[in-house]
């Protein structure tokens, strides 16, 4: 018994200008970034897992896709402006009497270190892993604008 991947026929492939445009646009951005070296940080690092980092007024958010990783197998540590994500993806054995048709998923450990652009309050970092998607919320360190009065001499 075999399972054959269904391949859509090239001839039956309809041209979708909208998605083609999107693809082209993303490709152009990528090339532009490489050429101008303008966004050093926007190039993916070759380390698992890939990260998305966003910010709003109060927090930094670090997100990673970690399918099949148990939340208890993820360890997050902080040091200065650095965030370290350690973990292991385990894939349990499925019994001896099974035969594999495809094996694309890997079980291994991972370690990723990333730097946030500014200080965060390490005591209030929160992490949630839901449906294999890790979200780490790092509150920005209170650096409120202070007004300094200039007194007349």
């Amino acid at each position, binding site marked *: *018994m*075999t*399972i*054959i*991947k*269904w391949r*859509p026929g*090239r001839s*039956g*492939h*309809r041209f*979708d200008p*909208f*998605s083609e445009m*999107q693809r082209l646009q993303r490709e152009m951005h990528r090339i532009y970034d490489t050429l101008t070296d303008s966004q050093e*940080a*926007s190039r*993916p*690092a070759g*380390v*698992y*897992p*890939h*990260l*998305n*980092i*966003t*910010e*709003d*007024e109060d927090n930094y*958010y670090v*997100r990673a*896709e*970690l*399918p*099949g990783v*148990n*939340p208890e197998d993820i360890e997050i540590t902080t040091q200065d402006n650095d965030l370290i994500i350690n973990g292991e*993806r385990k*894939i349990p054995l*499925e*019994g001896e*009497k*099974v*035969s*594999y*048709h*495809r*094996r*694309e*998923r*890997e079980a*291994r*450990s*991972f*370690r990723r270190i990333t730097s946030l652009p500014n200080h965060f309050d390490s005591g209030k970092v929160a992490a949630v892993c839901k*449906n*294999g*998607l890790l*979200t780490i919320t790092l509150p920005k360190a209170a650096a409120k604008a202070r007004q300094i009065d200039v007194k007349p001499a």
Partner: protein
Amino acid sequence: MNDKELQVRDKRELEGEGERTKPGLVFVPAVDIFESEAEITLLADMPGVASENVSIDLHENQLTVSGEVGLLTSDKEEYLLQEFETGTFHRQFTLSDRIDQNAITATVKNGVLRLVLPKAQKAKPRKIEVRAG
């Protein structure tokens, strides 16, 4: 690089599929497929997909698995670094065995879909004894 560590891979985008009604990116999930005497099991990595957003369709012997990922960020967030994109997961397979459609079970745990497709009675292997003539 330490070869005991997970290697990072770009998500595979689906290519050459018919036009979709919703605009957005479509990715091909990594899968494990294995077979025992009684059933075929499929495991698919679909991070960010909640169990209620998975759809499984078996028509004739064509199996379609897809999962929708909701928006991750709020309007107020701005990207500082983007290494991965999100979208729908979609993959199709042609099964060569008869499946007992009513007994299919699907569960989602930690972003991994586990689909168990029990073989129909007819498709289970039968041992045929060869008698000496």
